[in-house]
């Protein structure tokens, strides 16, 4: 997937883009916001750990809490404001996954609760689940075969 563009084309592409300083700014903004979101997750994770939960429970608690925060802040309209500044910094963390569920679901509410909310929730999350789950099954299968 990464090699779709030949390296020459890629270089050319970068050259065309380089003079604009916004790219550095975007990158720094993504770094800072993404890093801060991960620190929130680290805080939740450390807190859960201090209550004596095991590793798997800690990661479930953290994931569920982050998803809750992402969904809630999206509902309030705050997450999209962060997103305008942060770009990938707000898209790549799991809170962005929640955002990708809530945004279209709210937007299409007027189309009803089945084909509006229920279906549009997965317009972005669907592909993520399809590819993520499929790849994990392939990896598990390969692991099984190699382990024989």
């Amino acid at each position: 997937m990464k090699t779709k563009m030949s390296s020459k084309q890629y270089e050319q592409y970068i050259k065309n883009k380089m003079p604009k300083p916004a790219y550095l700014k975007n990158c720094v903004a993504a770094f800072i916001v993404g890093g801060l979101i991960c620190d929130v997750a680290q805080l939740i994770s450390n807190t859960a750990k201090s209550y004596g939960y095991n590793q798997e429970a800690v990661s479930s608690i953290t994931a569920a809490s982050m998803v809750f925060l992402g969904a809630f802040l999206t509902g309030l309209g705050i997450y999209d404001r962060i997103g305008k500044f942060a770009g990938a910094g707000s898209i790549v963390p799991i809170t962005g996954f929640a955002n990708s569920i809530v945004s279209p679901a709210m937007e299409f509410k007027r189309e009803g609760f089945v084909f509006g909310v229920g279906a549009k929730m997965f317009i972005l999350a669907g592909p993520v689940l399809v590819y993520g789950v499929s790849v994990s099954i392939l990896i598990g299968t390969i692991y099984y075969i190699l382990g024989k």
Partner: protein
Amino acid sequence: MMDYLKAFLVGGAICAVGQLLMDFTKLTPARILVTFVTVGAILQGIGIYQKIVDFGGAGATTPLTGFGYTLAKGAIKEVKEAGMLGALTGGLKSTAGGISGAIFFGYMAALLFNPKSKK
């Protein structure tokens, strides 16, 4: 305190890579997300991502690459415990909290809130 610095650096770096991909290629956010999940799962499949997680903690597990990591890790773990069937059940089992949470909280948020007008 070290935890937070490491999480910040690793998480920030992964997000910065996402931003670079968005700016320098024509990948849409949806494709970035799919790519990140897939790459995370593959990196875990070949045993690399665990090292990033050991170092970066939540900085490595919170980005979507971490979602792929958890899927792959779960699949491999279940294969060890339950054999071939584990490949089918392990991934979602390990991510059930996050996915169910995302569906439920996402649905609730969509019910309770309306989209804010965009400027």
